[in-house]
């Protein structure tokens, strides 16, 4: 398949760009941060995204979705990365929606996916327990339909109506549905460095309402769902990286020292040109991987780790170079470039950093 967007995907990308620039630019994130917004995202912006069908973009029409594919969703993620827009897109649609759509029964899809498409309920997936990404570990236990344990780094946990929780039973790892407002569920919101939110969620004999797949299917469910989510997150990171880079190049042309643009200095030119090359590689990985989701490719795990690893490394490079090239002004809170650095570190560790994925890629290739 040609590594270019179709006309329809291109159109979606353009409208996403227009929408985020108009409704949720970086200044909007700053405002949410400064007013200590209780939700951590703009409800009005999310409602409009739902109305445009973006919450149901990848889901089947029979459950209210548009069945437009992940390559399309990747363009929305990409554009939202450029503006650093905070929304439940990642937690509710990409993570929870994918788990249910890929592994849920048709009744479950009818029940949950249609709510996601209509924006009726927000979801969060709780799968981390250790201090670094370890998606297969669950000391959280399910006994007699009661779930107990503690989860870390639950993205958007504080606004979720429903939790999908990984937990162990005698049959192994499973994915369970728990009411976020139910008895025995305690949510502690943490505002992260990128002004977005992740929660620590403790479950104390919380009632299990439902289960995705069978007990013991958890590893399969999480592996595939997280691979899809890693690719979508990489698309968002690519958007952020490209935006940070183009702002940096613009600054190199504008900023004058010693009577000339600092962009005329070869030491900076070569670093900028090198970043350009690395970003080109990231673009190719992201489009290849997004298309692989839609084509149901059997090497998705390989592609997801390759993409998350490389995009993570280059996001780190570009965000660091951006601050250095902006110089003192880049260190000030007034300037927006710092927001890109902060988001970069959170997205880097979300769903596995490059250390995790370089290792995983080697394991997948049997060495």
């Amino acid at each position, binding site marked *: 398949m*040609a*590594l*270019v967007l179709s006309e329809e995907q291109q159109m979606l990308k353009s409208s996403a760009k227009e929408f985020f620039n108009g409704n949720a630019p970086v200044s909007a994130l700053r405002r949410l941060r400064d007013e200590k917004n209780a939700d951590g995202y703009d409800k009005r912006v999310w409602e409009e995204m739902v109305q445009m069908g973006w919450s149901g973009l990848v889901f089947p029409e029979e459950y209210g979705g548009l069945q437009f594919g992940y390559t399309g969703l990747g363009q929305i993620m990409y554009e939202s990365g450029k503006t650093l827009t905070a929304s439940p897109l990642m937690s509710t649609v990409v993570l929870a929606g994918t788990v249910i759509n890929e592994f849920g029964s048709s009744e479950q899809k009818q029940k949950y996916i249609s709510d996601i498409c209509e924006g009726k309920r927000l979801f969060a997936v709780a799968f981390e327990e250790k201090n670094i990404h370890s998606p297969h570990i669950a000391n959280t236990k399910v006994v007699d339909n009661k779930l107990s344990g503690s989860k870390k780094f639950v993205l958007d946990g504080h606004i979720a109506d429903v939790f999908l929780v990984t937990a162990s039973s005698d049959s192994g790892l499973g994915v369970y549905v728990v009411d976020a407002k139910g008895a025995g569920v305690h949510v502690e919101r943490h505002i992260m460095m990128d002004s977005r939110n992740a929660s620590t969620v403790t479950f104390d004999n919380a009632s299990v309402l439902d289960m995705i797949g069978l007990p013991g299917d958890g590893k399969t469910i999480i592996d595939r769902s997280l691979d899809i989510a890693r690719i979508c997150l990489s698309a968002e990171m690519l958007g952020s990286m490209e935006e940070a880079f183009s702002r940096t190049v613009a600054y190199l042309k504008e900023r004058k020292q010693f009577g000339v643009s600092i962009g005329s200095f070869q030491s900076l030119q070569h670093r900028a040109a090198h970043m350009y090359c690395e970003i080109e590689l990231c673009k190719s990985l992201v489009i290849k991987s997004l298309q692989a989701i839609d084509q149901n490719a059997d090497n998705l795990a390989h592609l997801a780790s390759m993409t998350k690893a490389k995009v993570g490394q280059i996001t780190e490079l570009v965000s660091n170079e951006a601050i250095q090239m902006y110089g003192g002004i880049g260190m000030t809170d007034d300037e927006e470039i710092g927001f890109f650095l902060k988001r970069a570190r959170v997205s880097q560790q979300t769903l596995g950093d490059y250390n995790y994925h370089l290792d995983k890629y080697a394991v997948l290739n049997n060495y």
Partner: protein
Amino acid sequence: MSTATQVNIDAFRSETREWLEANCPQSMRSPVKTFKDYFWGGRNPTFHSEDQKLWFERMRDKGWTVPRWNKEYGGAGLSKSEYKVLKEEMAKIGARSPLFSFGIHMLGPALLGFGSEEQKLQYLPEIARGEMWWCQGYSEPGAGSDLAGLQTSAEDKGDHYLVNGQKVWTSYADYADKIFCLVRTDKNAPKHTGISFLLIDMKSEGVSTRPIKLISGSSPFCETFFDNVKVPKENLVGVENEGWNIAKYLLTHERSMIGNVAKMDKTLDEYAIESIGIEDSVLADPVNRIKTAQWLIDEAAFNFTLERALDEAKAGSPPGAKSSFFKYYGTEMNKRRYELMMSTGGFDNLVWGEEYEDGKTARDFCRTKANSIEGGTSEVQLNIISKHILGLPKK
């Protein structure tokens, strides 16, 4: 693509497959490795085996040494999609290129783009038939990255030019029959506007060569000296003093060739596993394990990017300065690969031996260091990307 075109292409594919199956000798179906695996053509061609001769002659007679060139120039006049099919079918059976030639890849495009019809008819068919071995005379001792600073002069003497000067890094000048050269025809003009593109017979009086031994132990390059060499006026390609345009065109072309990272017999992880071994189901050296994974990810990403560039070109966006990106990244990656091979290969890879083949990895490793120098250094490519893609200002 219309159905009719698709039907034609499918027919061409099966014809090509059959023809290759019947005509490509078994021994010509493996990657070229040593000097003897290459056939370069020339006035007095040297074939290293009967199969090599047979394969060359069969391909020559089909016009498939230069499949895209028109028939009157010795080619087969294949369309782009037919050419793609031919390449794919050759790759499928591992068929070697029947003729290695700077004439095909360097001078050919220059003549097709800038030569007179007379010149095309004179030179292209003999290149296609492998009857002339051309070498390239660009760099000089004082003109490397600053190529336009070249000093070899061609003085207008009425019916001929009188050429004096020295070229360096002329590939196989000691074997070549002719050389295409950049020479200075106007000493007073700004450096880019006084250069011309000239064709010189290596048998002319006053031309001499001296091989340069490289750190790899081999000598593919020479120094070439011109001492009062008389060159006929009609050997000028294009317009006098406008040779820099041809040079730029060819350098872009050359870069896109060097930038392709060659496929090897073994992938880097296979190589490392064979050499270091697996312990507890992971590569026994944890640091090289991660470096290997990193390199393989970059290689895949680079290949996807080549693929994407082709797809984008088809969709109508021009490649432009992208060739500098491919040249820079591809050559740096090739160096990284050999650095890793030296490391994972351990003591065995340090052997040098008498013949090139005895210490192939060590020698190839040395050779890769030139990848980011020849055809424009990495630094020059970064300059081009800064200026033409990022639009960063000159001082």
